[in-house]
């Protein structure tokens, strides 16, 4: 039945999380590995993303934390001699690498068979011209499209197709380099950019405004096909599907349309010859059954992860099994266990996916949504009405909104029209504001082309809001209206705000009143199962959600004190990502091992924690106070774990505590003492632990007085943030003044926190676990960058290589003191500054942190497992080794996605801007950092390096490495000051001119545009506007022309030393288990 010659395979992961390629591939990779394991196939995983679940013990047989590039994969092939390779589970990164390995003959050379879809099929779908030709063979329509190799060909193509057109770059991630053009000027600018990503671009007819519909299709080697799910975009064509609100199943398609597109999807998958899974994206005319196929992804994708979660059908698991030779009918339905995988899930609910953007984190970035992707994460909401799902979903996104209505957001009328026709990340709120201003559904349709059905449903929510507002107390509110509001997804918070007219101060108390009131009326949510067959047969499933559109529970609740709830981390966002999923999954696994029933609450479809296989019960639902309380009321668990999912669960600590919910681990009162800046500060004072001086100030005058006292630079954190005025470091009075004008609102209500900023200080992290105030395990790591770069963006070394023993001893002592004072039980993390041997504490979190998976995996000691055991109060193994005994070094490096964020300044600061990370292991620091940086997309420069080294301090920092580069025969190009400094120090370089010195040559900009430069080192300096703008132009151009860019002198220096010390062929190809502890 299956191919028994395949005994050992390589699985390629997707590397660091980035925009367009996020946690979904941890989920699909983990599923594939599980499927292979079940068939006793030995698995070798290559993935430098150390924070993933798939790179954990017991998932793959061997793991290489190495870059996913043809070079490294070939080395692993040589070493491991696999029979096969899986390319479909690591996103575009794995696919591109696989195609390269195939084209260069490496797979043939070592006789490695591609498991699943043949590479030729992949190539057929990736090259748009071949693809359109393939579909034309079977009379399937694609948008009229002409491939062009240069700008002249593009102009000629437009003559045939006619404006408006869409430009696409071939072979890119999630629409990179794509966009709409309505005239020659737009074409010129977009096409030249697209050519930097790809040698081929496409000029296509625009079908903007059509419905966008996707199908997930599966095919086995017997030619059996199913479509697991279809999905309809709320936003019509023109907005990348990753940027769209999406519902599953489709809502506005008739049976005939649904099955026409379904049959086409099957026709396509057969013709292309995919074995496994693919995704077909359609444009469907809203006025007829006319359609175009927009795209086919011959691999698991973000949509397939969403479809798996939306239906309960494990696409990646099944795809891996089909690759080994199974037929669909020979596999079990993993949910029901009684039916087979050869079926199409029937849903009796609707799901709604909403993207999460973090555009506020970037300065200069365009907020308009279009055909390329900018969102960093997504959520999925489940309900039995669209109103319920979308309101849940808006809350889940976690941007401070309470649903479709009853938000504080205000948009003026001028902006509404603009928002509706040129959508940004806030369009959904503009729709509600339009209703408030009296716009009709038709008027909004005209501007947005969002199908009227969706708008009408949103209007229902709006109408209910108006009805609720007419009441002033719960006692006079009709039960039927209250029930209707709950069925439409209204939260207690929204009802309190609308009916009780609660102020921000009263709202937390008032929502409890709403809760009590409706409980007294027995208005409660029902727990429903996701069973893939809409209840047609009985199925025991543990995949659950809550709804008010129901009146009975599908499951029973055993109040036996043997269950533990773990709160997950919600939408991936900048600052909270797959690392917290790793922590959550490890907590669940440990809870299960310790013979408790594990209950997970989370709603992020890109995660492993929301795989119903990982826990005893999964509530795919909100992490709001209200919903967590609903579930706690039903389950009456032994306890709730808040410390694994990052800040979202942590923020619920006090609220749950006040309702007497048993919290496992550190007492919420102590969590509050660490979270509350003032309380924590006074605790440090009591313990005589040093901290940077800070003050919370409510007037501009006080700010100046404080700054006079501590001196510049200072770190400023306004509590009320207008765009562009987030947390920042200011170095002089001018900057401070400028910043305060931006922040505008400084008052008692909106104080500003100003802290002393210590320059040239090392930043150090400690991740630890304590039990009843006693530290039982810890790991100390150091940043390569000096303090000032957010810890999430920093390059982190573990174990520390350059810290004084004295420093480490002091840090350990501080950790012990704080653990004792806060009676910590469970995980905690602290960030500290060290200058000489002076240590200052900057932050303390009584929860798992971003670096827990990294340090746990490097030292091969699972801090989360022990933290969970500690919280459960069961026996645990104390580490018997010290981190200093490690014979190797781990380096964690950040992945940035600036290329996707049009116009964003790719510079690092106190606020985080990276979207992912990798962690690699080496024999020493240089080997590890080189592997890490190669893993996040840096390449070793061949010849030419452009340096503008910024302030004097970084000039000094870089002089040795510049010397080294010069000795190794690299050509250095340097801007004025840098060139002079290098020359004064005996290093030869070519002077280049600033971007605005357009008449002088060589000009930095032309070198970058002509791709003469292999590496750009640009250290920002905070002086004149001109320098800032020139610096920005250089940095942004480097990103736009895909040239590696480093903006930190210490990282630049470390990277240069590393690649001068090691050639790529010298890097050791060792699996994780070969690094002996």
């Amino acid at each position, binding site marked *: 039945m299956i191919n028994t010659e395949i005994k050992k395979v390589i699985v390629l992961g997707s590397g660091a999380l980035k925009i367009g390629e996020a946690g979904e591939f941890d989920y699909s990779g983990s599923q594939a590995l599980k499927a292979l394991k079940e068939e006793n196939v030995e698995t070798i995983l290559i993935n430098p993303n150390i924070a993933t679940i798939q790179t954990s013990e017991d998932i793959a047989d061997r793991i290489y934390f190495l870059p996913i590039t043809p070079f490294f994969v070939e080395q692993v092939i040589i070493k491991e001699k696999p029979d096969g390779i899986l390319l479909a589970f690591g996103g575009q990164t794995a696919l591109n690498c696989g195609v390269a390995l195939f084209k260069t003959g490496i797979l043939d050379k070592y006789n490695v068979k591609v498991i699943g879809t043949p590479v030729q099929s992949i190539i057929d779908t990736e090259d748009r011209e071949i693809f359109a030709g393939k579909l034309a063979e079977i009379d399937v329509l694609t948008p009229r499209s002409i491939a062009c190799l240069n700008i002249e060909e593009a102009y000629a193509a437009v003559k045939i197709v006619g404006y408006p057109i869409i430009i696409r770059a071939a072979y890119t991630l999630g629409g990179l380099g794509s966009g709409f053009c309505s005239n020659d000027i737009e074409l010129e600018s977009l096409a030249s950019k697209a050519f930097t990503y790809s040698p081929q671009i496409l000029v296509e007819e625009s079908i903007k405004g059509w419905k966008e519909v996707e199908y997930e299709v599966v095919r086995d080697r*017997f*030619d*059996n*096909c*199913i479509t697991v799910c279809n999905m309809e975009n709320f936003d019509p064509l023109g907005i990348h599907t990753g940027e769209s609100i999406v519902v599953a*199943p*489709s*809502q*506005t*398609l*008739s*049976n*005939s349309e*649904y*099955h026409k597109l*379904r*049959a086409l999807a*099957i026709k396509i998958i057969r013709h292309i010859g995919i074995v496994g899974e693919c995704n077909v994206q359609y444009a469907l005319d*809203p*006025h*007829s059954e006319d359609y175009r196929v927009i795209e086919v992804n011959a691999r698991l994708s973000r949509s397939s992860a969403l479809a798996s979660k939306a239906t309960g059908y494990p696409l990646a698991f099944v795809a891996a099994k089909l690759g080994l030779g199974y*037929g*669909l*009918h020979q596999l079990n339905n993993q949910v029901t266990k*009684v*039916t*087979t995988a*050869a*079926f*199409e*899930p*029937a*849903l*009796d*609910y*609707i799901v709604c996916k909403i993207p999460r953007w973090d555009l506020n984190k970037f300065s200069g970035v365009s907020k308009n949504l279009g055909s390329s992707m900018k969102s960093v994460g997504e959520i999925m909401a489940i309900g*039995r*009405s*669209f109103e319920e799902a979308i309101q849940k979903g808006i809350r889940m996104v976690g941007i401070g909104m309470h649903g479709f209505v009853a938000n504080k957001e205000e948009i003026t009328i001028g902006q509404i029209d603009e928002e509706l026709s040129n959508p940004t990340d806030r369009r959904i709120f503009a729709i509600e504001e339009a209703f408030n201003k009296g716009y009709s*559904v038709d008027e909004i349709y005209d501007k947005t082309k969002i*199908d*009227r*059905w969706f708008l*009408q*449903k949103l209007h229902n929510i709006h109408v209910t809001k108006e009805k609720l507002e007419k009441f002033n107390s719960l006692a006079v509110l009709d039960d*039927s209206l209250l029930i*209707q509001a709950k069925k439409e997804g209204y939260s207690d918070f929204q009802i309190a705000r609308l009916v009780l007219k609660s102020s921000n101060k009263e709202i937390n108390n008032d929502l409890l009143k709403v809760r009590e009131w409706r409980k007294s009326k027995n208005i409660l949510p*029902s727990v*429903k199962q996701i069973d893939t*067959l*809409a*209840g*047609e*047969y*009985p199925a025991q499933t543990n995949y659950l959600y809550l709804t008010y*559109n*129901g*009146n*009975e529970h*599908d499951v029973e609740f055993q109040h036996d004190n043997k269950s533990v709830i773990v709160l997950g981390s919600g939408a991936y966002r900048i600052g909270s990502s797959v690392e917290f999923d790793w922590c959550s999954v490890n907590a669940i696994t440990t809870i299960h091992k310790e013979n408790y029933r594990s209950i997970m609450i989370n709603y992020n479809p890109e995660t492993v924690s929301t795989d119903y296989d990982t826990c005893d019960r999964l509530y795919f639902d909100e992490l709001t106070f209200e919903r967590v309380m609903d579930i706690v009321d039903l389950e009456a668990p032994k306890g709730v774990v808040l410390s694994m999912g990052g800040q979202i669960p942590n923020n619920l600590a006090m609220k749950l505590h006040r309702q007497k919910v048993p919290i496992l681990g550190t007492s919420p009162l102590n969590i509050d003492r660490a979270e509350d800046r003032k309380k924590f500060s006074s605790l440090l004072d009591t313990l005589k632990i040093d901290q940077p001086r800070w003050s919370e100030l409510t007037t501009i005058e006080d700010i100046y007085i404080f700054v006079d006292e501590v001196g510049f630079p200072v770190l400023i954190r306004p509590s009320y943030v207008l765009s562009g005025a987030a947390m920042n470091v200011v170095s002089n009075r001018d900057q401070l003044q400028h910043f305060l004008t931006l922040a505008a609102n400084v008052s008692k209500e909106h104080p500003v926190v100003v802290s002393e900023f210590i320059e040239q200080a090392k930043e150090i992290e400690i991740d630890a676990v304590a039990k009843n105030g006693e530290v039982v395990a810890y790991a100390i790591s150091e940043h390569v960058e000096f303090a000032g770069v957010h810890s999430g963006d920093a390059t982190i070394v573990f174990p520390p290589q350059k810290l004084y023993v004295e420093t480490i001893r002091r840090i350990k002592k501080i950790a012990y003191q704080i653990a004792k004072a806060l009676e910590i039980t469970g995980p905690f993390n602290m960030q500290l500054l060290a200058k000489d041997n002076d240590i200052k504490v900057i932050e303390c979190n009584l929860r798992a942190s971003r670096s827990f998976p990294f340090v746990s995996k490097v030292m091969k000691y699972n801090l989360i497992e022990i933290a969970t055991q500690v919280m459960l109060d069961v026996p645990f193994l104390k580490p018997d080794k010290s981190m200093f005994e490690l014979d190797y070094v781990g380096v964690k490096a950040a992945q940035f996605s600036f290329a996707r964020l049009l116009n964003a300044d790719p510079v690092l600061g106190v606020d985080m801007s990276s979207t992912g990370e990798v962690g690699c292991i080496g024999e020493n620091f240089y080997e590890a950092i080189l592997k890490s940086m190669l893993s996040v997309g840096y390449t070793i420069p061949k010849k030419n390096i452009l340096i503008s080294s910024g302030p004097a301090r970084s000039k000094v920092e870089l002089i040795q490495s510049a010397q080294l580069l010069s000795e190794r025969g690299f050509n250095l190009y340097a801007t004025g000051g840098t060139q002079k400094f290098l020359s004064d120090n005996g290093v030869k370089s070519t002077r280049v001119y600033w971007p605005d010195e357009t008449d002088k040559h060589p000009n930095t900009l032309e070198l970058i545009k002509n791709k003469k430069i292999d590496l750009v080192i640009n250290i920002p300096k905070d002086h004149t506007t001109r320098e800032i703008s020139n610096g920005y132009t250089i940095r942004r151009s480097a990103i736009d022309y895909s040239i590696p860019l480093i903006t930190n002198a210490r990282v630049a220096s470390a990277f240069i030393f590393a690649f001068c010390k090691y050639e790529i062929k010298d890097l050791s190809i060792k699996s994780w288990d070969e690094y002996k502890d």
Partner: protein
Amino acid sequence: MATMTQLRKVRLILEDGTTFEGKSFGYERSVAGEVVFYTAMTGYPESLTDPSYTGQILVSTFPLIGNYGVPSDSKVNGLYEFYESDKIHITGLIVSDYSFEYSHWNAIKSLGDWLKENKIPGLFGIDTRALTKIIRVKGSLLGKIEFDDEIIDFYDPNQENLVAIASCDKVETFGNGEHRIVLVDCGVKYNIIRCLLNRNATVICVPWNYDFNGEDFDGIFLSNGPGDPALCDATVENIRKTMDAEKPIMGICLGNQLLARAAGAETYKLKFGHRSHNQPVLLQGTDRCFITSQNHGFAVDTKTLPADWEPLFTNVNDQTNEGIRHKTKPFFSTQFHPEAASGPVDTEFLFDDFINNVIEYKKKKKVKAP
């Protein structure tokens, strides 16, 4: 749009006493029948006009219904283009979330208005998942939709010969193709007729108990239909008679059961009926598996098939029979619906197989003819 407060409360009462309260969006009249569910996520206009649902109160497990309104009532070849028969056949409709406002280019009215015109009650606001769980356990269950001012009794439609109600009452011919197909109408869905017409057929639609053996035809088609196959002895007799002639036969759903009974096999009532678009069936002796649309509560007992017959398709989930064929003669039938509408169209090729059988038969007949 009717506001919520104007909507009348109405109850669904099951024979076991369970009561669900919802609101009315259809015609306001109390009705009784058998309560059945279907799990398809699209195709309510097709299901509502499917004669197989005669006498039944239909529950949609997909909660959001009415989204795309009701399609145009245009006709092609004398058949409604977008409906499966000339009227709504269900007795009542039960949904969770009804869309008062619809949106579709081909819609001419709302589902609620359509129900009102056809005097069919519709309820929304029901926990259809809870209701479905009750129905699947009981298998078949009587129920009534009751308005406060109109108390009625339960009614078991299975006591009657539903086929007689759903069937046409006189012979009617559609199309003008070269293959003359007698269609035994036990409650036929229009799409079966369309599938035949598209393949160059003349369709002679005859009532369920009509003895068609005297007609001039090249093949027999046994349609789908409601109820228990054991009540259609008249049809079974007529099929038996025609089997000697070796003219090609194809049957669908009830047609599969009638062909089996004509061959001498038994039919029985399933514990869990098949009411969905996602049923996998395996072609006997191969690894070819198809996703099919199904709506049946009875099945053919494969063990009772005579020696010259064999199973054609088998359900992968519960191993029940999904089709039979004669080992030597051009007779076959399927339990599922290759004509889809609604549902997946993956097995429509079976109509080609049937027409090919007809062509083969005609060739042979020519050879035999002097």
